[in-house]
């Protein structure tokens, strides 16, 4: 098994997806690919099915919220792993919170099921094609997505927990 390098995979992705890729950087040794949300599913399918890159293991899927990024407030982050070559890759995509739709990865990885449910539960990302997209850790009748930044964790009248004390 030839070893996969970040540079090699980077060039393969660039030649395959071209302008659909917004950014490719190496962060703490892990290749991080930011892809346009329209090509998100295709990229991951390709990463899984390509004979060389062969990322057959879904390590993690999660989301993050960036309220300051207009029209791309929600960020979905996927970690994939090619076990035999021990190659890890991170795929990120941004979607607007007004249209938080993204194709589900459940046809590719069964394990994506609950990970996507968790991201839906906490961030409201709607994964189209998901077999059972409903809350998982929160109560069934939860009507908002608590990890979004607009929902503060603590009592807002407390002055000692102001953002400026958190260095931002």
């Amino acid at each position, binding site marked *: 098994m030839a070893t996969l390098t970040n540079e090699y995979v980077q060039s393969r992705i660039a030649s395959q997806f071209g302008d659909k890729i917004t950014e490719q950087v190496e962060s703490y040794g892990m290749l991080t690919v930011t892809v346009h949300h329209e090509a998100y599913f295709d990229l991951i399918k390709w990463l899984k099915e390509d004979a060389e890159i062969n990322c057959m293991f879904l*390590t*993690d899927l999660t989301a*993050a919220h960036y309220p300051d990024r207009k029209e791309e407030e929600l960020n979905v982050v996927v970690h994939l792993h090619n076990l035999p070559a021990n190659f890890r890759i991170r795929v990120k995509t941004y979607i607007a919170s007004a249209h938080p739709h993204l194709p589900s990865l459940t046809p590719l990885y069964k*394990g994506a099921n*609950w990970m996507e449910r968790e991201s839906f539960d906490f961030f409201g990302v709607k994964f189209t094609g998901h077999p059972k997209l409903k809350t998982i850790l929160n109560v069934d009748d939860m009507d908002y997505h*608590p*990890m979004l930044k607009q929902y503060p*964790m603590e009592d807002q009248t407390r002055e000692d927990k102001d953002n400026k004390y958190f*260095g*931002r």
Partner: protein
Amino acid sequence: MSTTEKNTTTAVEEKEYNILNLGPTHPATHGIFQNVLKMDGEIIVEAEPTIGYIHRAFEKIAERRPFYQITTLTDRLNYCSSPINNMGWHMTVEKLIGAQLPKKVEYMRVIVMELARIADHIICNSVIAVDTGALTGFTYVFQWREKIYEMYEEICGARLTTNVGRIGGFERDFSDKFHKKLNDFLADFPAAWKEFESLINRNRIFMDRTIGCGPITAEMALEYSFTGPNLRAAGVDYDVRAMNPYSSYQDFDFVIPVGTNGDTYDRFMVRNEEIWQSLSIIKQALEKMPEGKHHADIPEFYLPPKEDVYTTMEGLIWHFKIVMGETEVPKGEVYHAVEGGNGELGFYLVSDGGRAPYRLHFRRPCYIYYQAYPEMIKGGMLSDAIITMSSMNVIAGELDA
């Protein structure tokens, strides 16, 4: 001919299924899990797990906590092996800030993490035996977990939710008393574990109950993103300690045991063997333990000794800055994984330079593999479902976070 066929089909009675609520607080589930089972007599037709009963919003809380305060949150993930979670978190932050650690700290961490793995596997395996009806083995080995807890106490003062270590090392060096307890443990525990194994491993009743119970194939386990002993029992030799060595695991010689069928018996046997491997790693680490300090030289993250805080200017300044969270943290995102008691425990940390993480996500192995549970118990008996769950070692704290 055709008429008779028709007659037989209409004569078949409508199947009557029963709905059975297993949990949320059923003593056999060892935690707060609910499974709504559709039963055909004693056979499970469908299962619908409900989780989240002890969800404590750690990821949300972590966005408001300085890095050093998040350690206590990680304690409460897999509380059967808290030190591994603590160390995993410390290493994630160290990776973010680019801290270099002395070899000695890494070896000390290896010892504590392997003790935690032993404690975790003792619980899991003896509880599998309890669920199959063999209580005695459990009472024999449970006291050894107690001895491991006493060692934790020597290191950090706590037992279950350990909060052990600091970013950059340990708060103090291992004491002589700890070394004595560890040496006693290494001398006496193998005999006790051998006794346990000789009681259970080739026990006819145990084997009949567990072989072929709740099996999963390697392909399916990979599809479901299984990690840890559950994946290895299915025959895939994936172990983070070997694949992405952290904390100097590359210095130690150990074997990764694998099973073949991925059933309850294989999971049990894989954990048994891992205990022996952990013991061997601890011995190697003790033998090779280098000289040096028990912490890294990163005054901006590692609290100075209390005497220095009271007597020196620098000590006071660093202490104040650390406690008030005035330390510069680089921006960036980092993923770090350790081999937890149950599999790959990952930390995905996004830092925006603030004193708390912008986003922190725990990749919790339990949460990910528990979703395969309905598929694993379908078509089996209710009693098999119970031992399948205990052999998967689903820990409620890690499941719900």
